[in-house]
């Protein structure tokens, strides 16, 4: 027991060494657990949120609305109407996604709508351009191209969240600049579309898998395929039903039309008949009347004649009465006839009026007939066009999109995987350096205690017992350090990183997981490394016989170094430089350890700073070195311009989105290609997975167009994916102008995309990478500090007798500092050099893992990054030499008189 007590006494006596092992193990543990756990925490948190919100696995979108029958078959969680609409709020234009309120959301602040002109808006994690109380005025521009809303002015009363939108970036749209700015939830009654366009489906059997695992992905993909097959059938059914319904309705309309037509024409015919009959009758009557009139006239003439004859007859007594009687009779008759004549005339006059009426009736009939004919023509035209419409109905399409395509899901996944990949490369180097330094420290301790080991052995202690002394020492330090490190790593690092991720993603309550697997892994890794180191170092010592251990014989031999042997320069060097050089290369072990240790730190630092640089300069590189245009304005009809014009479209290649540019040689003016672009070329940017000579299938986002293009070249690009197609390959009407200057946007343009907008979009990703980098840089700096400190302390302790001797010989402190620190500086210089050379490799490996599908970072590192890294490490070394001066001052000259070293 006394033996073990002595171990703990040693720990107290050599507390600075013990603490340095604790610190190094702690740093290693922080980095490893911190970076590993962050991605686990992030994914667990989001997985729970998705579970709790019953987030969809499959989303189906129909170009025709889903009908009752299909919905009954699919049995979705939710079905709703969704389209995009340009709108204005606070005098600014935004692209809105309008979702019917049937979709599920969670109220975060404000209140739920109480009437149909009130809406809730999706809460964004940053850039809250629209707040509660603001009004949104939707314009006629929407993605459906027909009237979609009953009212267009809405008041925002609440902010909500929905699992579909966890990232601050909401996705793309066919409207405006192509960026979706906001999502609003509008009452279903305000939307003119009656049936849902979107359905969300959750698959119960997928619930048991974490959504970020490959198992989930594989299973979901299989299910998606099954849905895709079903979707074809659904689409066909919906289309058939729509067509049948349309045809049925048309037929009904047609029949009605025919019926009306017959009825109307019959009525017209009857009316015509009636008019003709009337007319005939009138004419008949007129004829009679005329006859009567003629008769009356003849009678009257006869009477007149008779009267005239009577006048000629001499009037006598005898006949006078007779004549007078006759006369009276005649006059009476005449009067009667005359009144008859008047009557006839009156009748004729009446008939004239009747005639006029008939003429009027005829006119009316004519008009009616004309109207009828026009109506018929119109109706038949309508029917014809309806028939045409039915014939021209576009085939119904149902798109199946799974969770993997959700913008929030996949940005989140790639962000958390970024950390994961950083969590494998960085800790590896970190670990390596930590183990190395622990190894050096323990080895030094064992060497210092050579005599003690000899004494213990001579006292009869077994090798295993001696071994436990160092194992207890090393493993205790390691356990303490690792435990602290694991706790810090598990909570502090994720907390730090989450702070920034909260700007990019809407997190529900964060799950801080204490992952025992990770903790144990870290612990085992470190303990095994330390224990192995101790065992290896001790093995050599224990193999020596006791006498050798106890003797003062110095086993180390001075050696001339290479430089000396060549004879060149050596004699010209100053004495102190000679000693420094010889001492530096004296112990190969220490040389290699130091160079790797400091080199490793330098690599980490260079990688961190390099990443930060690459990430920060990527947008500048894209928009001042590759794409030289500032705006991309698309018109309905191209205005006259001398800027470069193109046809452009957003397309899908495999699973990637890309912009298709169709243009001619003038593209060379505003895009820097790796090779000159000409009309027959199809040049793709480097992130599109295809080789030169390969034919790629490119389809537009709305699946309307599909092109097969043979790739003739690849070109460097930093942000986004592009396919540049020569005008000889695809004939397309140019509708887009690429504007070089950052002038104010043209109001005539349908959409304008600004380079600046794209920069803002990548900024989010850049921010997130930057935090991780800052954490890594800080930890690397700590490591640099601890490593150089340790190496220097070891250097001093190895030379303590030498330094004491120099003191006795009368060397000034300054000379002694130089004697030891020149060596440390030279070693760290070599280490830095090594680190800078290999750091570049590490940097490019790490860079690749971080960049993701749409971004390519520039792999070249500017000299300044090397310089800064160099300066930082050198400064740290200098700082440490200053700190450690005290330690050298403290060296007791009496050490020189001791018998052993």
């Amino acid at each position, binding site marked *: 027991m006394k033996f073990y007590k002595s171990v703990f006494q040693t720990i107290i006596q050599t507390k600075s060494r013990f603490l340095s092992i604790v610190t190094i193990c702690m740093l290693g543990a922080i980095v490893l657990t911190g970076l590993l756990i962050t991605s686990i925490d992030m994914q667990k948190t989001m997985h729970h949120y998705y579970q709790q919100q019953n987030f969809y696995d499959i989303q189906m979108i129909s170009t025709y609305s889903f009908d009752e029958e299909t919905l009954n078959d699919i049995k979705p969680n939710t079905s709703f109407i969704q389209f995009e609409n340009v709108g204005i709020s606070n005098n600014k234009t935004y692209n809105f996604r309008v979702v019917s309120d049937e979709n599920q959301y969670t109220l975060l602040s404000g209140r739920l709508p109480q009437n149909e002109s009130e809406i809730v808006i999706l809460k964004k994690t940053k850039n809250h351009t629209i707040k509660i109380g603001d009004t949104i005025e939707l314009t006629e521009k929407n993605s459906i191209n027909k009237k979609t809303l009953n009212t267009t002015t809405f008041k925002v009363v609440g902010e909500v969240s929905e699992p579909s939108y966890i990232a601050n970036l909401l996705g793309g749209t066919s409207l405006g600049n192509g960026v979706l700015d906001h999502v609003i939830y509008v009452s279903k009654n305000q939307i003119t579309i009656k049936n849902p366009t979107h359905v969300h489906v959750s698959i119960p059997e997928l619930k048991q898998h974490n959504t970020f695992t490959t198992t989930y992905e594989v299973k979901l993909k299989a299910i998606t395929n099954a849905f895709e097959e079903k979707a074809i059938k659904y689409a066909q059914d919906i289309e058939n039903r729509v067509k049948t319904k349309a045809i049925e309705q048309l037929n009904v309309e047609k029949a009605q039309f025919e019926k009306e037509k017959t009825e109307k024409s019959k009525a017209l015919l009857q009316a015509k008949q009636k008019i003709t009959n009337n007319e005939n009758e009138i004419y008949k009557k007129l004829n009679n009347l005329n006859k009567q009139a003629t008769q009356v006239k003849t009678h009257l003439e006869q009477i007149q004649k008779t009267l005239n004859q009577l006048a000629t007859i001499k009037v006598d007594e005898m006949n006078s009465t007779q004549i007078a009687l006759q006369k009276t009779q005649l006059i009476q008759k005449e009067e009667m006839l005359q009144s008859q004549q008047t009557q006839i005339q009156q009748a004729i006059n009446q008939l004239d009026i009747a005639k006029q009426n008939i003429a009027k009736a005829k006119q009316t009939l004519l008009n009616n007939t004309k109207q009828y004919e026009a109506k018929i023509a119109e109706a038949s035209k309508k029917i014809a066009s309806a028939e045409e419409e039915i014939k021209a109905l576009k085939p119904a399409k149902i798109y199946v999109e799974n969770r993997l395509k959700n913008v929030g899901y996949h940005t989140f996944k790639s962000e958390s995987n970024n950390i994961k990949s950083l969590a494998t490369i960085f800790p590896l180097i970190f670990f390596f350096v930590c183990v190395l330094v622990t190894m050096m420290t323990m080895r030094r301790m064992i060497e210092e205690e050579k005599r003690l080991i000899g004494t213990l052995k001579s006292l009869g202690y077994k090798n295993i017992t001696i071994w436990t002394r160092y194992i207890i020492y090393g493993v205790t330090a390691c356990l303490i350090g690792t435990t602290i490190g694991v706790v810090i790593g598990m909570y502090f690092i994720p907390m730090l990183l989450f702070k920034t991720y909260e700007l990019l993603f809407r997190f529900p309550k964060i799950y801080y997981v204490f992952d025992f697997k990770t903790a144990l892994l870290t612990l085992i890794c470190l303990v095994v490394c330390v224990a192995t180191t101790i065992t290896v170092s001790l093995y050599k010592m224990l193999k020596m016989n006791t006498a050798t251990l106890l003797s*003062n014989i*110095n086993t*180390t*031999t*001075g*050696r001339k170094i290479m430089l000396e042997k060549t004879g060149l320069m050596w004699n010209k060097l100053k*004495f102190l430089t*000679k*000693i420094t050089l*010889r*001492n530096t290369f*004296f112990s190969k072990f220490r040389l290699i350890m130091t160079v790797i240790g400091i080199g490793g730190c330098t690599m980490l630092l260079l990688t961190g700073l390099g990443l930060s640089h690459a990430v920060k300069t990527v947008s500048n590189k894209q928009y001042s070195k590759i794409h030289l245009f500032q705006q991309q304005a698309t018109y309905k009809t191209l205005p006259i311009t001398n800027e470069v014009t193109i046809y452009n479209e957003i397309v899908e290649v495999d699973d990637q989105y890309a912009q298709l540019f169709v243009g001619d040689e003038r593209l060379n003016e505003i895009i820097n290609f790796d090779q000159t672009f000409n009309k027959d070329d199809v040049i793709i940017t480097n992130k599109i997975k295809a080789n030169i000579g390969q034919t790629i299938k490119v389809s537009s986002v709305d699946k309307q167009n599909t092109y097969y293009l043979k790739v003739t070249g690849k070109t460097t690009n930093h942000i986004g994916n592009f396919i540049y197609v020569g005008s000889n390959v695809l004939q397309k009407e140019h509708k887009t102008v690429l504007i070089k200057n950052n002038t104010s946007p043209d109001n005539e343009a349908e959409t304008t995309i600004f380079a600046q907008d794209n920069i803002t979009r990548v900024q989010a990703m850049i921010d997130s990478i930057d935090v991780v980098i800052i954490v890594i840089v800080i930890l690397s700096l700590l490591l640099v500090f601890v490593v150089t400190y340790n190496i220097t302390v070891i250097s001093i302790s190895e030379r303590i*007798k*030498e330094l004491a*001797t120099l*003191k*006795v*010989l*009368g*060397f*000034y*402190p300054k*000379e002694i500092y130089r004697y030891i620190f020149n060596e440390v500086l030279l070693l760290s210089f070599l280490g830095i050099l090594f680190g800078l050379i290999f750091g570049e490799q590490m940097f490019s490996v790490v860079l690749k893992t971080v960049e993701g599908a749409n971004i390519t970072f520039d792999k070249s590192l500017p000299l300044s990054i090397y310089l800064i890294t160099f300066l930082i490490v050198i400064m740290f070394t200098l700082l440490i030499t200053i700190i450690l001066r005290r330690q050298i001052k403290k060296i007791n*000259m*009496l050490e*020189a*008189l*001791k*018998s052993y070293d």
Partner: protein
Amino acid sequence: MFLRVSNVKKNYQLGEIKVEAIKGMTFDIKEGDFVVILGSSGAGKTTLLNLLGGMDTVSEGTITLNNNNISAYTNKQLNDYRRNDIGFVFQFYNLIQNLTVLENVEMATQIVDEPLDAQETLKMVGLENRITHFPSQLSGGEQQRVAIARAIAKNPKLLLCDEPTGALDYQTGKKILALLQKICQENNKTVIIITHNAALSAIGNQVIKVQDGIISEMYYNENPLPIDEVEW
């Protein structure tokens, strides 16, 4: 007087215990003498050596060398004193392992104003053929000779030797002492040897015996014996 030690006391504080390593010593040493300080372990001889060598300061009393009060020196002055006035020979040689024989000597000569020639000094100690060797390639006696060469090449006023033969065998030890004697006589250097070996008292001009922190006996040999005639 060349070196004068008067009423020197040295106390150490070890935790709560105060240890009186030197309880009061007074003696003079003439220039060019070969002085042997004799004492068993714990007698205070090493403490005395530390005080004479400027590695430690007195608690009481004064030490003067050529009338300079060393005991009143600041650290910086003590540093200069060690650098220019003292040559030190260690029991375990304390050579820099990573420097050759010549370099070990040169290391010392380059820090003083009027050094002796390094190669000449090495010739004097009989190592002219080994100047390019490293210490580990030499025997113990040879290493101690290098140490002596290093000490005298600085051309010090006083050569302090701490058990110079302690780590050497009998014959080699004798040779080293002979060398020291030779240096004393031929170069007129004051040499102080600290040893527990009573037989060496015969070779000193002056012998100081210390015991329990005080001088128990001090005497001068009119005719000190050459080392060859001393046996132990």
